[in-house]
C-alpha cells in the first residue's frame, strides 16, 4: 500500500512539474475575474430606513429575496468598508452613530472575538436595530459571516415583534447555493464540505441558536403572547427552509418550547 502511494506521488509530482507553468498561467486568469467582481461591489443597492418603514411586510420579504438574487457576486472583507452611511444612519443619535461606526470596524476586521461585540451591542435602541436590519439587506448574500453577525446581534437583543419578523424573513430567503456565488451551485470536496454548508446557512443557523438561547434564558421576553406567537412563527418558517441542518435545529427548538 505504501509503495503504491509512493509511486502515485512520484508520477503525479512529475506531472505537477510539467503542468506547473500551465496552471500558473491559468491562476493568473482567476485574478482577473476577482478584479471584475470587486468592481461590481459598489453597485449594491442601498435602502433607506424611511422607505423600509413604509414598506409592507410582504414587500419587505420580496426585497429580501430579490436582494439575495440580485446582489452582485462579492464576498470580500472589503464589503463592510464599501457600505456608505445612508440617510438613516446620519439620523441616528450620537451614541447610536458611534455604535454603528464600531460595528463597521468589527465587520471590516473579520475579528469575531472583538470584546466590543458583547459590551456595546446589548440593549440597543430600536433605531439601531432597524439600521442593522437595513445593513443586512445591503451586504452581499455571499458575505455569510457578516450577514450572520447582524442577524446574531438582533436575535440576541430581541426587543419587539419587528425583530422577530426580520428573523422570519431570513428563512424566506433562497438558500445560498455556494460561498462563491449564492445563486449557483459549485462542487465541494467531501473532506470539509460540512464547513462550507454551515457557512452557507450561517445567518439561518446563528438566528436559530440565538432564538433558542433567548427562549431558554429569558422566557420573560415571551410572556407577551404576541412575542411568543411571533417567535413560534420564526421557527415554523425555519422548518420550511429547505436545508436539513436548519430544519433539524428548528425542530429541536420546537420540541423544547
Amino acid at each position, binding site marked *: 500500500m505504501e509503495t503504491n502511494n509512493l509511486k502515485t506521488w512520484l508520477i503525479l509530482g512529475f506531472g*505537477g512539474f510539467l503542468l*506547473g507553468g500551465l*496552471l500558473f498561467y491559468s491562476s493568473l486568469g482567476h485574478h482577473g475575474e476577482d478584479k471584475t467582481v470587486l468592481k461590481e461591489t459598489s453597485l449594491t443597492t442601498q435602502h433607506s430606513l424611511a422607505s423600509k418603514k413604509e414598506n409592507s411586510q410582504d414587500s419587505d420579504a420580496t426585497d429580501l429575496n430579490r436582494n439575495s438574487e440580485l446582489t452582485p457576486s462579492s464576498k470580500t472583507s472589503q464589503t463592510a468598508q464599501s457600505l456608505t452611511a445612508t440617510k438613516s444612519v446620519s439620523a441616528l443619535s450620537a451614541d447610536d452613530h458611534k455604535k454603528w461606526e464600531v460595528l463597521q470596524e468589527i465587520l471590516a476586521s473579520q475579528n469575531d472575538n472583538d470584546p466590543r461585540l458583547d459590551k456595546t451591542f446589548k440593549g440597543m435602541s430600536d433605531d439601531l436595530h432597524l439600521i442593522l436590519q437595513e445593513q443586512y439587506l445591503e451586504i452581499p448574500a455571499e458575505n455569510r459571516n457578516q450577514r450572520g453577525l447582524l442577524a446574531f446581534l438582533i436575535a440576541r437583543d430581541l426587543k419587539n415583534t419587528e425583530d422577530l419578523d426580520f428573523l422570519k424573513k431570513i428563512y424566506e430567503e433562497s438558500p445560498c447555493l455556494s460561498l462563491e456565488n449564492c445563486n449557483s451551485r459549485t462542487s465541494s470536496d467531501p473532506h470539509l464540505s460540512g*464547513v462550507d454548508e454551515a457557512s452557507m446557512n450561517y445567518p439561518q443557523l446563528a438566528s436559530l441558536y440565538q432564538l433558542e438561547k433567548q427562549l431558554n434564558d429569558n422566557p420573560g421576553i415571551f410572556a407577551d403572547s404576541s412575542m411568543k406567537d411571533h417567535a413560534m412563527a420564526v421557527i415554523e418558517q425555519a422548518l420550511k427552509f429547505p436545508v436539513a441542518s436548519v430544519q433539524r435545529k428548528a425542530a429541536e427548538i420546537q420540541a423544547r418550547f
Partner: protein
Amino acid sequence: MFNFFSKTVVRAGILLIFGSHCFAAAPESSVVFDSNVPKDIQAQMLNDLTFMAELQGSNQTAFHKQIFGDFSGNSYKNFFETRVRKIGMNACGGGNAVACVIPFLASNKMFLTNNFVKFSHPQIARMMVVYHEARHTESQQGNWAHDTCPTPFLDEQGHDKKSIWTGAILEGEAACDSTAFGSYGSSTILLKNVTKFCANCSDKVKMDADIYAIDQLGRINRDDVKKSMIADFNGNK
C-alpha cells in the same frame, strides 16, 4: 486514503517551481510565509493565529488535555507551531478548500488558498480548518489519514449524509474518522471546549464553535468512539 492531499498534487508543481523565496512573519509568530502568499492572506492568518494564541479557558476536557494540553492560548500556539513551520499557497485540489497539507511535499508546511480570505467563514471555522490540517502533518501517526465513511452513511433521521446543494456525497469517501484523536475528532474536541470553557471568547465565537462542531463530530463513524467523545464533553468518561 490520504484524501486530504492527493487531489492537490498536480497543482503542487507550481510551488516547486515558484515558491522558493521566504520571509519571516510577525515576531509573535514563528511561522514563515512564502513570498507568494498575498499580504491580505498573511494578515488574516496572523490575526487568526493571534486570536487562537490569546484564548483563555477555565478548564478543559480530558481528551482536550491529551491532544492540546490545558485550554490556553499558549497550548494552541504551541500545537500549531510545532507542526507547521511554513505557509505557502496552493489550490488545495480546487473547489472550496481554504487550507491543506501535502505531507510528501513538505512535512511541516501548510498551504492556504485564495478562499481563505475570499470566502466568508466565521473566524473559529477558519481556525478549525487550520487546526484540522495541522493535525494532518503528524507523519509519525500516518498523518491521521481519514477512514472511509460507511455505505450507507445515514444521519439521525435515517437520511443519506450528503449535501443537497453541492452534491458532495459522504458514503464511501475518505471523509470520516474511526478515532477521537484524528483531524475530525481533534477539531470537534477543540470546538466543544471553546464553547464550554472559553473565558475570553465572545458570545459569537462560542456559538460558532458549537455550530461547526456538529459536522466534525458527525464524521466519526464508530458509535462507541462518538459516545466516548460525548461523555468527554459532558465531563465523564
